[in-house]
């Protein structure tokens, strides 16, 4: 069948334009979610906090210039049961708004994924760390400690219980890291009054000289000795993770609950086995190795019930209510001392309050403005077929070809170093850009198909 090139394309063009005018205000794209842009960024001076995370999104998309359209009659044709309409959209442009948000983030200045020491220059000390008279570890001290730790790794691994001890950390390292990254309180407690620093210094010296590691006479800046301090840190970690676990459970994330709870329990198990009642016998390096080599010693895994019972005991302040203590006694579990119970209660409250604060912390708008992309010369081709079984015309194909796609943003009012970071990151958002391009293309294909069908069938 010959193609009918005498069709009145001009009239169809008019109809398409009329139909397109009805679509002009329709939403072409959904707002994007906020995409992370940069973490731990120094904020501009006019923002209430110094350190925060940045995110961005595009919203309120509008396609303008749809009506400046021509049907290209040379590449359009009409057959009995088929019509193909080729069009050029001469002045089409995408307009939208961009938003850049900032959200407070506490600065992480402890090497939470490495050796738990403070990071060096350029990072402020942990609040509380400078309260005591303890000097931070010097690079030379850290080097010596790390070398010592590395030297101990092989002999520890060669002992009967060493490999289990080492792999226990590895198994939960992501959870421990999460707890320290998420909780500013946990980091502050870790570094408070320089006690952990002083203890690691003492441990290093004692291992070097094979003298007592956990002295029962030395009192640290917080008024506690080595064993109770070690126990307190274990409780801090264990409680923070339990609170994070319960928060995940509250949000229906039972898998994350299990993961954090397992890490919390591992920390409590370690304390229960190694330093029960903060009463580990005073030991030097040789004693520690002897214990690690003692095949009769087996790290006793704490059951879920025993673990839960610890917190039930903690909530029973004076042990008078009976239930939790009685259950512990009848099962041969450890009875917590009064100060241990108090510590758990205090920490639970502290971390619960912090998690609520984090949850309620909302991002703030940092900058917002116009953005646009010119799409001049966009071409569209729509094919309609007549479906004889339904006796109606339908869209069999709709294709849109977009020109090169560049998004321009008005950044004239961005200031300071934050602006440099935002510019650098925004200049590289090729995935976002190509995703937008792909969605605009599909949206236009959909719209042009409907518009041409309505225009043609109305004619």
């Amino acid at each position, binding site marked *: 069948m010959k193609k009918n090139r005498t069709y009145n394309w001009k009239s169809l063009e008019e109809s398409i334009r009329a139909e397109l005018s009805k679509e002009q205000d329709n939403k072409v794209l959904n707002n994007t*979610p906020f995409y992370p842009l940069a973490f731990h960024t120094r904020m501009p001076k006019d923002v209430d906090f110094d350190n925060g995370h940045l995110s961005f999104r595009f919203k309120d998309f509008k396609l303008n210039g749809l009506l400046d359209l021509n049907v290209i009659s040379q590449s359009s044709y009409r057959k009995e049961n088929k019509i193909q309409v080729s069009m050029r959209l001469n002045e089409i442009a995408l307009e939208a708004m961009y938003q850049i948000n900032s959200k407070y983030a506490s600065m992480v200045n402890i090497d939470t*994924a490495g050796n738990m020491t403070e990071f060096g220059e350029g990072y402020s000390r942990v609040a509380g760390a400078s309260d005591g008279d303890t000097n931070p570890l010097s690079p030379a001290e850290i080097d010596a400690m790390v070398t010592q730790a590395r030297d101990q790794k092989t002999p520890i691994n060669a002992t009967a219980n060493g490999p289990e001890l080492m792999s226990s950390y590895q198994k939960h390292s992501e959870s421990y890291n999460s707890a320290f990254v998420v909780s500013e309180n946990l980091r502050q407690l870790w570094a408070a009054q320089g006690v952990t620093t002083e203890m690691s210094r003492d441990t290093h010296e004692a291992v070097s000289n094979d003298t007592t590691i956990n002295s029962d006479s030395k009192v640290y800046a917080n008024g506690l000795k080595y064993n109770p301090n070690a126990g307190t840190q274990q409780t801090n970690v264990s409680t923070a993770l339990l609170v994070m676990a319960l928060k995940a459970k509250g949000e229906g994330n039972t*898998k994350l609950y299990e993961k954090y709870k397992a890490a919390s329990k591992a920390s409590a198990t370690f304390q229960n086995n190694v330093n029960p009642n903060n009463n580990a016998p005073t030991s030097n390096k040789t004693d520690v190795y002897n214990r690690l080599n003692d095949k009769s010693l087996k790290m006793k895994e704490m059951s879920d019930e025993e673990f839960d019972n610890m917190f039930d005991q903690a909530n029973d302040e004076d042990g008078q209510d009976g239930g939790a203590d009685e259950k512990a006694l009848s099962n041969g579990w450890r009875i917590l001392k009064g100060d241990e119970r108090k510590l758990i209660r205090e920490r639970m409250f502290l971390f619960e309050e912090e998690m609520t604060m984090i949850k309620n912390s909302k991002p703030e708008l940092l900058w917002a403005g116009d953005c646009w992309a010119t799409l001049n010369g966009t071409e569209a081709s729509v094919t309609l077929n007549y479906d004889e079984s339904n006796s109606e015309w339908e869209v069999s194909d709709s294709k849109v070809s977009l020109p090169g796609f560049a998004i321009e943003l008005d950044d004239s009012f961005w200031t300071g170093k934050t602006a440099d970071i935002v*510019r650098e990151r925004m200049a590289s958002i090729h995935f976002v850009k190509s995703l937008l391009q792909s969605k605009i293309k599909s949206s236009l294909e959909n719209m042009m198909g409907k518009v041409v069908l309505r225009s043609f069938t109305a004619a």
Partner: protein
Amino acid sequence: MKDINLPRTSVLQAGVNGKASPLKRILDELLDQDINQFEETLKTALEPQANYISETELNIYQRGKKIRPIMLFLSARMICGDEELSHKIIKAGVSLEMLHVATLIHDDIIDDALVRRGLTSVNAKRGTKVAILIGDLQFVQAIRTFTDAVETDSEMGLVKMVLDTAFDICAGELSEIETNPSEDLVVLRQHYFDVIERKTAVMFGLACETGMALAKSRTGESRRLGFYGRRVGRAFQIMDDLFDFLQIEEDSGKEVGIDLKLQRLTLPIIYAMEELGSSHNVSRIMRGEILCPDDISAELEAIKSTQAIERAYADARHEALDALEYLKHFKKNVYRDALEEIALFTVDRKI
């Protein structure tokens, strides 16, 4: 129409062209010598299998991006600088690539995939039985090569890490197959992250941690770099799952929407199920209530009409940017810059 030509004091242009992959430049400019040694060592490591492997498997090795060895060498060079890398580091890189190829061969068997890296897959070419054994050979040879790389007692811990990683990869695959799609969507999302941690992220973490440890870094530093690697691995896997919906079949050599057809619960599918509701065909296909049709264009359109892709992308960006947090405390040098570039390129590459 609003005048878009209003004069502005400054205008940011997000660029017309996509970013080119940095991997080739990194190989040419920073790791040229290492990669030559890598190729030689790989050849030697494959020699014991000469009677069993064919062009099909060799092509998989040749066509790979070698991102894991690249990350391992860059991690080692953060410590060694421009010095020649020891042979054990090169061997470790070869070992990880073999471990990766083993997983690819086994993946194709599980998925009944006919094409791998644009060529016929091992199972399609040589049958499932042979493919299983060829995959096993790569696993075992990977471990043998790594064990050969270990020289000191303290490095023996790394062998355990490699074995743990191999175990995790297999467990991750099993866990993925055994996912219960009827679980709550919040749980499914966490399950997805657990699966990709084992299936993909641990190997990226291992590459970085091992590279640095073999270069005699401090334990804390290599451990920290492992955190960087795992996050890049997570971002890499999420992006891979996104590209399942976005790439053009002719370019990628992969059937678009194959994850939906294989009922693989990837992050964009989980988000789409959440937005489309439990009675939508996408959710019903995933739960096995209805068969997946041959033509899935309607389902793909439905998924694309939601914000599933954007939300999953936001998660991938989160991981990539978080990875940089574990990199920033290392001394700045060209190798650290390259690792930073890899993390960002993972999420900034064009569709």
